[in-house]
């Protein structure tokens, strides 16, 4: 547990988080591994986990009928993947595909939601940090959408 708490505290997402909150979070955490090529999560399945990537890379993949899957982002070391665990209906909207061997901390979504409900200060801390990630990912998606490498005419 002590080791898990240290790993979580070193994750940029939880940087500077109060020790008491880390103590609460570590109760929802476990170490997980995914082999390259396997799925971390699949679209339409229950989003019951939140991952802190320690090593490797997860591709966020969109399933497109009659087309090859489209990878729209990769999530790497030190980053987090997944916020569907926080919002109803708690279902993954995309596939998460390990493109390399992945080591991660898995945080049980239901456990974390319960603790956030019981302790709104913890809930607000996590929400503030998640919103920052959502904002960055939205910026990146907008940036992709405008096709920045196109030739200027």
């Amino acid at each position, binding site marked *: 547990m002590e080791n898990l708490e240290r790993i979580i505290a070193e994750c940029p997402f939880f940087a500077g988080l109060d020790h008491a909150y880390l103590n609460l979070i570590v109760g929802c955490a476990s170490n997980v591994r995914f082999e390259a090529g396997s799925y971390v999560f699949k679209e339409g399945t229950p989003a019951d986990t939140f991952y802190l990537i320690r090593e490797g*890379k997860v*591709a*966020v993949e969109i399933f497109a009928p009659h087309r*090859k*899957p*489209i*990878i*729209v*982002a*990769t999530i*790497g*070391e*030190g*980053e987090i993947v997944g916020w569907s665990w926080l919002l109803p209906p708690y279902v993954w909207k995309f596939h998460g595909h390990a*493109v*390399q061997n992945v080591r991660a901390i898995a945080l049980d979504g239901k456990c974390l939601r319960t603790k956030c409900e019981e302790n709104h200060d913890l809930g607000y801390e996590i929400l503030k940090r998640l919103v920052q990630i959502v904002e960055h990912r939205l910026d*990146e998606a907008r*940036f*992709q959408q*405008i*096709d*920045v*490498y*196109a*030739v*200027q*005419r």
Partner: protein
Amino acid sequence: MTTAAILEPMTPLLHSVREVVKETPDTFTLTLQPENGAPESSFQPGQFSMLWVFGVGELPISISGDPGKQDRLVYTVRSVGKATNAFVSQKPGADVGVRGPFGTGWPVEVARGHDLVIVAGGIGLAPLRPVIYHVLSHRADYDRLVVLYGARSPRDLLYRKELASWARQRETQVLTTVDYGGLSWRNHVGVVTTLLKFARLRPARSVAMLCGPEIMMRFVARDLEAHGLGRSQIYVSMERNMKCAVGFCGHCQYGPHFICKDGPVFPYEQIGPMLDKYEL
């Protein structure tokens, strides 16, 4: 600028096409060599030439070759119109006129003794490749070299073999990303700014050189500033419709600057405020 270019900046010197390499479906690298005793051409990384495709027109193109190899001039060109298409369709042995080199180069002397952070988007890697060649052939003069490169898709990446070979050099980090990857792509997916969080940056001792569409450079500069680089540590290469290349005609005027003569490489603290203005 070479002696010939200073004396006769408007007169093209005859060169012949030595080699044509297809880099991507629409981008080609052409190697030219001087003909009829035309002098060898020395250039600074970041400078450009005016290339005459006889019977078609003239193109401003950045030099993408090794500044240490003065017996040839190398250009990487994306075919996007009549003149560029005519240029990339040239066969070995064909004649091309060359004026230049023109413009300011990348500040390789300012960067000496520092980490060098190169951020390129799309064909923007071409004008920065001479800097990479320069650093790798003067390795002891520079600290860490970080190359961050983004393109639309894996098939749009330039110089893929060289990227892999640069990544194997000591104290060199090369990260590539694409906007949309397929299943066989094992690298990053996302815009080029997403690479900054994986880059081994030491902001206080870095000089950054950016080249790509202006919108990309603006976002990259903003994020580099957020990572702790000052505007004075960032340089960008601008692109405009250059005609005379010596500051006479005014085609490439950008605010108070002529891109051909005062640029194309500018300190970001000089050009940054203008990139925030609409329709300039």
